[in-house]
């Protein structure tokens, strides 16, 4: 073994980093006639198995040498693999809130469980009020979360320092982390207290304090960003992960595939959470993909994958905790597919009765409701009852309406905010355009709704 020297071992190390072959596998390579070649004076071993094969021990499982699939073995049978068995769906509670397997009991405290339930009720009532507000023309747009409130369970399974990249139907996770009703209302009303400074449509929340990246409208763009952020967090050594939410429709975008692939190759501590609610606006899941949901794709990318009942808050909580452990301790990305049903419309610009029967929606609401399941579980433990329910519902409703009318009365942000934050400092073209707008408003003040804005345009 004349090559067993420093160079050889170094090349093995490089080979290992290149190809992710375990050291054990490498030691089995018979380096009789190593195909060495020189690049810039460094000796490299080729990334394929050595071409002169050892004598075939097991004729039926002759391994493949090609670098593209080192785990494969030869076969003499033409067999098109059509599908694998459908991936099972993990569940803790049944539809009546009864734990199906005691070993999966989440074992949480009363405060913890009640907080989650209260946040779900808050979200529910918030949605009802803001949806109506849009219908009355008070806010321009809104998206409800009906049917997907159990998503809050995933926020409960994370650390507060874990960064969240959402899509748009994860307001529950923000509420769980402590986003106030005021902050939420301010964003929906685009008023002067909006953290986003009135620049985006309602429900495009963001909070640096709560580690929730600002929502953007293009779908799936956040998924490769989540991979990159996770890689950075790994390098920083904080033992935090990234949580990335998206729907089954967004999972058809190229960004999804690019993201999973790079998360796997770079070993990023990221949890990909797909809310498969059966619809992408009007497109049902049957028209969105042909394979076994989104979960089957994770396996293709070499990612730990699990499917979970998306209306079962404890199932989501358990799975998120387990996924977080894998991500943070072993730097493995995880794909969670949470199956649920979108009870509401896609948004206020949509009327889903145009593409699905109202009865189907009502059946789902009645028979498999995340709030009802958790409530029944709580009531079984005597941690909740009818009185608490009514009390909480009316008090939170009052709070929401107070925040609502407060937000409505505030001014819109100063018009200067139109020009800020394009770059970290204003550039000559932006400064010139701001000057020009100032002069225009002074010339034609009645053509613009200046009263609505803080400082009425005088600070331009």
């Amino acid at each position, binding site marked *: 073994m004349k090559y067993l020297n420093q160079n050889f071992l170094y090349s093995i190390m490089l080979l290992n*980093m290149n190809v992710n072959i375990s050291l054990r596998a490498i030691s089995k390579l018979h380096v009789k006639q190593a195909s060495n070649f020189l*690049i*810039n004076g460094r000796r490299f071993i080729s990334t394929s198995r050595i071409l002169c094969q050892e004598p075939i021990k097991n004729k039926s499982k002759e391994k493949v040498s090609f670098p593209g699939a080192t785990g494969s073995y030869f076969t003499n049978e033409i067999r098109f693999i059509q599908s694998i068995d459908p991936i099972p769906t993990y569940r803790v509670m049944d539809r009546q809130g009864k734990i199906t397997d005691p070993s999966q009991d989440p074992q949480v405290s009363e405060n913890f469980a009640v907080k989650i339930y209260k946040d779900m009720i808050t979200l529910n009532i918030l949605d009802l009020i803001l949806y109506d507000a849009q219908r009355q023309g008070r806010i321009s747009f809104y998206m409800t979360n009906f049917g997907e409130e159990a998503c809050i369970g995933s926020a409960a399974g994370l650390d507060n320092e874990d*960064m969240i*990249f959402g899509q748009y139907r994860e307001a529950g996770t923000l509420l769980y982390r402590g986003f106030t009703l005021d902050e939420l209302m301010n964003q929906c009303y685009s008023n002067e207290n*909006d*953290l*986003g*400074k009135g*620049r*985006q449509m309602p429900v*495009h929340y*963001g*909070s*640096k304090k709560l580690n929730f*990246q*600002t929502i*953007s409208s*293009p779908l799936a*763009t956040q*998924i*490769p*960003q*989540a*991979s*990159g*952020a*996770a*890689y*950075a*967090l790994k*390098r*920083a050594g904080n033992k935090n992960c*990234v949580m990335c939410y998206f729907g089954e429709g967004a999972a058809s975008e*190229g*960004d999804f*595939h*690019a*993201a999973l*692939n*790079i998360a796997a*190759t*770079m070993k990023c501590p990221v949890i990909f959470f797909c809310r498969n609610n059966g619809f992408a606006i009007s497109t049902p899941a049957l028209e969105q993909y042909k394979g076994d949901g989104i979960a089957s794709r994770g396996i293709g990318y070499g990612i730990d994958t699990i499917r979970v009942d998306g209306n079962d808050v404890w199932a989501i909580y358990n799975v998120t905790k387990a996924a977080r452990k894998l991500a943070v301790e072993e730097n493995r990305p995880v794909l969670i597919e949470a199956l649920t049903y979108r009870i509401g419309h896609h948004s206020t610009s949509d009327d889903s009765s145009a593409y699905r029967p109202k009865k189907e929606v009502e059946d789902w609401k009645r028979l498999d409701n995340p709030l009802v399941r958790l409530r029944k579980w709580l009531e079984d433990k005597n941690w909740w009852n009818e009185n608490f329910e009514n009390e909480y519902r009316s008090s939170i409703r009052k709070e929401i309406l107070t925040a609502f009318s407060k937000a409505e009365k505030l001014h819109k942000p100063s018009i200067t905010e139109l020009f*800020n*934050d*394009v*770059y*970290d400092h204003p*550039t*000559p*073209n*932006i400064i010139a355009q701001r000057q020009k707008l100032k002069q225009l408003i002074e010339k034609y003040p009645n053509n613009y709704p200046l009263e609505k804005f803080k400082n009425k345009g005088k600070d331009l």
Partner: protein
Amino acid sequence: MQTSRFTLLYRNFANNIYSKPLSRNRFIHKAFFHATKKILQTSGAPPPAEGYLPGVAQSKFIKSTQEEALKNSELMNTGVANGETKKMNMFQAINDAMGIALTTDETAVIFGEDVAFGGVFRCTLGLAEMFGRDRVFNTPLSEQGIVGFGIGMAAVGHTAIAEIQFADYIFPAFDQLVNEAAKYRYRSGGLFNVGGLTVRSPCSAVGHGGHYHSQSPEAYFTHTPGLIVVMPRSPIQAKGLLLASIRDRNPVIFLEPKILYRAAVEEVPVGDYELPLGKAEILKSGKDVTVVGYGSQLYTLENAIKLAEKDIPGLSCELIDLRSLSPWDVDTVANSVNKTGRLVISHEAPQTSGFAAEVATSIMERCFLRLEAPIQRVCGLDTPFPLIFEKFYVPDMTKCYDAIKEVVNY
């Protein structure tokens, strides 16, 4: 038709080989190999991948001595004005800049396709060995993934230097760049930003690149508020501008004219220095015509100006390198045109909606009454970048010279 020299030699050789009994003689094979090599060399070797632009090395703007290089007023406050310089070509200068960036910033990483072994243009040569494979690494083949990944890293405060192998392939990442990176700070109300993102990409013509190895896509990005677009012209400029771009707190697209990678060697200061973004540079002072360009086109313009000044005695042209295209230095160009009254703008990218349109309109707005002649644009044609017709497509020295003459004789 005259038989080529290669064919004659080959026939002669083949006759000799095949008419004699076959002898498994290694020397014959070696001889054949060397003979072929020699023939190819004398009849014209294949062009290098990044192209070959003779004449750049002779350009007056290339600082080939240490004295020239350090005389630069922009280097005065950077700490390298009295320092050591080293002969570097553009890819070596870029390599040096990235090495300094990774040394001074613990969160900085470099990634893209094939960057680990050194990159297809050797810009990242040796960096993986120096900083480790967790900081300089290959990504799968997906530009949207590369840029998305970079945005994510920058969003949590790290420095991401992403490489797109050819600017022609930047388009899958267009959504991430325009809809995400550019708007990240603005849409979040300043809560988040991706200032740590820099996307580097080789661009522009090489002589044989055709549609997909020659594009200059700067105009797509200068049209997007929130992005910064930079294009250097030489090794010293590339190092300083790249360090400034990496450290700038806004997402930057750094386009590198690939034909300049090995075209010339300059005495580049080895220290850590930055050159200002958003500022143009006057390469040559003049009083009659303002000529504006950027990247590799500057050397074509230099030659056109030389010829024009020879043919029109007394003519003096002012040559300006924009360097930054977004935001661009309107004041420097406007001041120059107010002095000369004539403007010629040139770039390789197609004419319609090209960057010259932006320069021409802004200067027209600022200097309308001062202009002595219509502003001339000398640009690529409004066709995809052709292979065999490249010499007719590009704004070559002839076209630039002609435009200068036209603007003078109006």
